[in-house]
């Protein structure tokens, strides 16, 4: 083929342009550590990365939710444990308050039980994240309302909590309830914290009854009624503690599963996006060598023409 004066430089410029573009691309890949940046680099891989990222985002959200729920379960667990401690003390008082005690001693016990009632009400009306912890889905009203006599003694309680509790999404398909309403009177759904017909628990009323019997004094009722009732409450709290422990373990299991899945997703994203540095550096070296060779040969050829030999 006849080669004219501009064919060679034009061809050289095209070749150098192509090699420069390739070097630029490879250098970008090495400096960013990514083999794709824009959708055009690999549209299918970009699509897969977006899907994987969406899935990873959801998993991470579930994990954050689970971490928050674990905190909530801890708070609930600690609240139940505090109430259980109060229950232990109430049981001790009920057993200690026998006929051998003087009315003054029983009155002292009654004052202590009054304090225990206040503490239980205080715990039942505690807040978490600015909502009542044991309100069920009704987080804006104190779950326990009390009526006091002229001396400031709580003489009756009523429950404003809703038996329904929020269900939290912890995976694509699973929801979980970690809340406990202060009371359950229907006997179905989530067990009540203080009152539930299934376990015959009615802790606050049982405490009020104990206090009143201590003040009466009526040690027979304490022995025959209050001790039995408080034992039922005690068992109820043990079940509640066990239930909270199970929930915490369940959340941890789901979180572990999510963690494993998130790691796999990260690996998949890495496989789609991360460049293989050794092979990319090798390709860059090859391209650089070709670029240098093109420059050297081009300079050698472009530098000479017939004009150099004409006098």
């Amino acid at each position, binding site marked *: 083929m006849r080669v004219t004066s501009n064919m060679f430089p034009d*061809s050289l410029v095209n070749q150098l342009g192509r090699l420069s573009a390739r070097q630029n691309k490879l250098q970008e890949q090495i400096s960013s*550590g990514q083999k794709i940046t824009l959708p055009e680099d690999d549209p299918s891989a970009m*699509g897969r990365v977006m899907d994987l990222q969406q899935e990873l985002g959801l998993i991470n*959200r579930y994990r954050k939710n689970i971490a928050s729920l674990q905190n909530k379960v801890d708070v609930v667990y600690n609240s139940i444990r505090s109430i259980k401690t109060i229950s232990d003390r109430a049981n001790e008082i009920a057993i200690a308050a026998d006929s051998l005690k003087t009315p003054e001693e029983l009155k002292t016990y009654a004052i202590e039980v009054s304090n225990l009632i206040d503490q239980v009400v205080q715990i039942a009306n505690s807040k978490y994240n600015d909502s009542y912890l044991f309100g069920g*889905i009704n987080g804006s009203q104190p779950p326990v309302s009390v009526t006091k006599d002229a001396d400031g003694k709580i003489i009756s309680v009523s429950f404003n909590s809703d038996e329904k509790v929020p269900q939290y999404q912890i995976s694509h398909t699973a929801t979980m309830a970690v809340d406990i309403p202060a009371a359950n009177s229907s006997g179905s759904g989530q067990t009540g914290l203080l009152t539930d017909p299934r376990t015959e628990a009615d802790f606050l009323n049982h405490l009020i009854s104990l206090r009143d019997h201590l003040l009466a004094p009526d040690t027979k009722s304490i022995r025959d009624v209050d001790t039995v009732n408080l034992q039922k409450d005690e068992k109820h709290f043990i079940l509640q503690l066990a239930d909270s422990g199970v929930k915490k373990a369940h959340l941890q299991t789901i979180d572990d599963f999510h963690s494993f899945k998130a790691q796999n997703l990260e690996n998949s994203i890495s496989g789609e996006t991360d460049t293989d540095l050794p092979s990319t550096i090798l390709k860059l070296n090859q391209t650089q060598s070709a670029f240098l060779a093109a420059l050297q040969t081009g300079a050698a050829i472009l530098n000479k023409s017939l004009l150099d030999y004409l006098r």
Partner: protein
Amino acid sequence: MPGLFSILNMGSQSLQAHQLGIEVSGHNLANVNNPAYARQRVVLQTATAQQTSAGQLGSGVQAIAIEQVRESIYDRQYESETSITSYLQSQQKSLGMLQSYLNERVDRQSSTTSDSSSTLASGGIAAAMQNLFDSFSKLSLNPSSLSDRTVLLQNARMLASRFNQLSSDLNNLTSFLNDSISSDVNKANSLLQDIVELNKEISQQEFGSDARANDLRDLRQQKLEELAGIFKIDVSEEPDGGVNVSVNGNLIISGLNQIDSFETSTDANGNVVVVLKNSANQIQSGGGSVQGAIDLRDQIIAAVKTSINNLAAQLINEVNSIHSGGYSLNGTNGQDFFTGTDAATIRVNDALIQNPALIQLNDSANSSNSNQVVNELAQLATKKIAALNNSTFSEAYRQVVENVGAEVSRVNQRLDDQNTIKNLILQKRNSVSGVSIDEEMTELMKYQRAFEASAKLISIVDDLLDSVLSIKR
């Protein structure tokens, strides 16, 4: 028998012929970097011989033509490849803009330096959509949290503004393409006039003679190639030197006459279309920058617009449908979460922005911890929507990004291939028509030597004449 004066005349003719050769080589060298130029050469022919008693005696040389070295098949091929290249170039430029408007890119560094752990850069709709559903999910833990509600509104507004921005960018891109089509049409009409004028001049100059209007032909070829960059054209040459130009089977130039011209009109969507002024036929040339812009606008950008609008419309419908069943912290309901109907008009309800407590996330009045409604809103992230071809929102959007990426990649690849083909054709043409400095220098030396020899001949004849004249002294 010819005498000394005849030899003198032969020398003079030879001098003129070789001087012409030097001039043509000089012209070639001067145009070595002119891409439109086709090299020229002097056609030499032996002058008519004279009959002598010894037989026929040659009378030297004469230059009979200055010929342009050009293969019309390469010109036609180059025009055709120029049309395809321009078609792809016009698409590549705008597709690059479209891709940047989507603003979806992988940024692994952001996942290691921010809390989001997102592989995607945060500037696109994908990240904004994920943030919105993330906010709903977070609120499901505590639907009454005003700070989380405020974050939800910020994320919703961010998503809405990205839809608005993308919609505006797509409209701007459409306007840009419409302007580009109008501008190209004006340029094409100007080129048509130039080609007709050049046809006339070439025809006049070549009429009744063998002389070719070489430089005018170069200029006309340059104009034809510029026109081929705008519309795919078919070119044929007439015996009088003029060319016929047709587009999509419509004759636009017939030799010395311009039959038709291009003009722009608007279709039902307000988009610019190209029609022929006289025949009113709509032009679908199948190549060139105008067709590239029209196809990109009417196929790819229109599809992206439809998808984005549908995505925004479904998001508005789905979110509002669930939101309308919920109750605010004040126990009220009936407010929409989003207003608007598509990507251009989607907004977060102003009333909610003024008072985040009005967001209807609870299942009933006075149940500030109820989260069934907000759970449903969060689950929209994975819900298959019938109107989105049974895809989730993120899958539908991912499809848009993937399609745009595939188009950019396809056009880039095709343009790379097309440039190779075009360069190959250009090389073929240059191998015939291009100027070689070495070749021209050699030619110059040949003509220089021949010129010097002819001058020597004249000098010798002059000496001979002196000798003849000195006989009388």
